[in-house]
């Protein structure tokens, strides 16, 4: 039952560094997370693990929260990169609405700017464990 965690990415105003990591270095055939049953899904309605990158910019905040609300339970929320955790390099900016966990419950943090692919995969494995406990 817990062998098919599908992953959905939300970019909350990220500089795209972490997104590049997610798209092209970490979750790619080289490290092959598909053998764990993980794959990206195009629709939030099919998602189990949510990867959120980026500090929550003011412009995108409502849309991110709206998109997040589309994801059915049970789900695991993962903050990828230091930006959703504390604001990262942007933390004193006027355009940032603060760390993600002011608005949504975060289950797992993967710090780094950007995190190494190995760190992302380890975080994903931990997220799968959390997801199994939530089922």
């Amino acid at each position, binding site marked *: *039952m*817990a*062998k*098919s*965690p*599908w992953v959905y990415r939300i970019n909350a105003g990220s500089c795209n560094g972490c997104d590049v990591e997610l798209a092209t270095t970490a979750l790619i*055939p*080289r490290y*092959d997370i*598909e*053998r*764990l*049953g993980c794959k990206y*899904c*195009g*629709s939030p*309605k*099919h998602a*189990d693990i949510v990867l959120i990158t980026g500090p929550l910019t003011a412009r995108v905040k409502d849309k991110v929260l709206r998109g997040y609300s*589309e994801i*059915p*339970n049970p789900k695991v929320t993962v903050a990828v990169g230091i930006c959703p955790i504390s604001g990262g390099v942007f933390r004193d900016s006027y355009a940032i609405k603060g760390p993600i966990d002011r608005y949504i419950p975060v289950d797992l943090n993967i710090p780094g700017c950007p995190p190494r692919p190995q760190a992302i995969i380890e975080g994903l494995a931990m997220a799968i464990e959390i997801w199994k406990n939530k*089922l």
Partner: protein
Amino acid sequence: MSSMDGIFDYIINVLVFPGGLSALILGLVLKGMDRKAGARLQRRVGPPIIQPFYDLVKLAGKENCVPETARKFIFLNAPIAGSISMALAMVLIPISGVYTPDASSGDLLALLYLLAVPAVVLMLSGSSSGSGFGALGFSREMSLILALVSVALKVGSETGSVITFSLSEIVRVQQVNGPFLFDPVMHPAFITYLLFVPAGLGVAPFDVAEAETEILEGPLLEYSGLIRTATGRMRMDQAFLFYFKWPEITGITSLLTVLSLG
């Protein structure tokens, strides 16, 4: 009494073998093999072959959400209708030596029409979901089907005009005369069929309707939970139908039966 038995047998055929359950299982295994083969070609391990089973079970466990702007009745019932039509279509196909349906003329036409149902279901799902992506998927699927149906009718009519529209008759003729595969007259129809299979399934390069990178799975976007499993299951039945149907009709298995008996 005999009619009661007949109905009971028919229901078993639709629900378990060769329809329903067995079509679902075999279709999912086919999909699993496809993913595994793709992975191996890319020099990686890949998911286990039964991964699609896990996917389907997982999707069933999610909350069942219906968008506010969706037409609820069509939205929820279209995938179910699609699954049922696939199960019914499976019952029509004779499997040599294992299963013979009640012979009737015109089976082939019924089969072709039933095969069009998943496409219609996809269109209905897309248009009733109330999302822009769904509507896009609906119109794309419609374009695809218009191109597809003419091909399907060509194939069907070629077979029909050469022999008959009855599937049992087709299999029996091949048991006597040898499989169609070896008959050069049927080769154009066979090639057309090979082109038709990925288009009918919505597999690349014919996946405009469900393009994941463009319209985010179009018609299926707003589905979650148990209903999503119904759409997945419909696709799986379709896959099984396509991959196993033509070998039956071209009599590859009848060839095997003949070889093993003689």
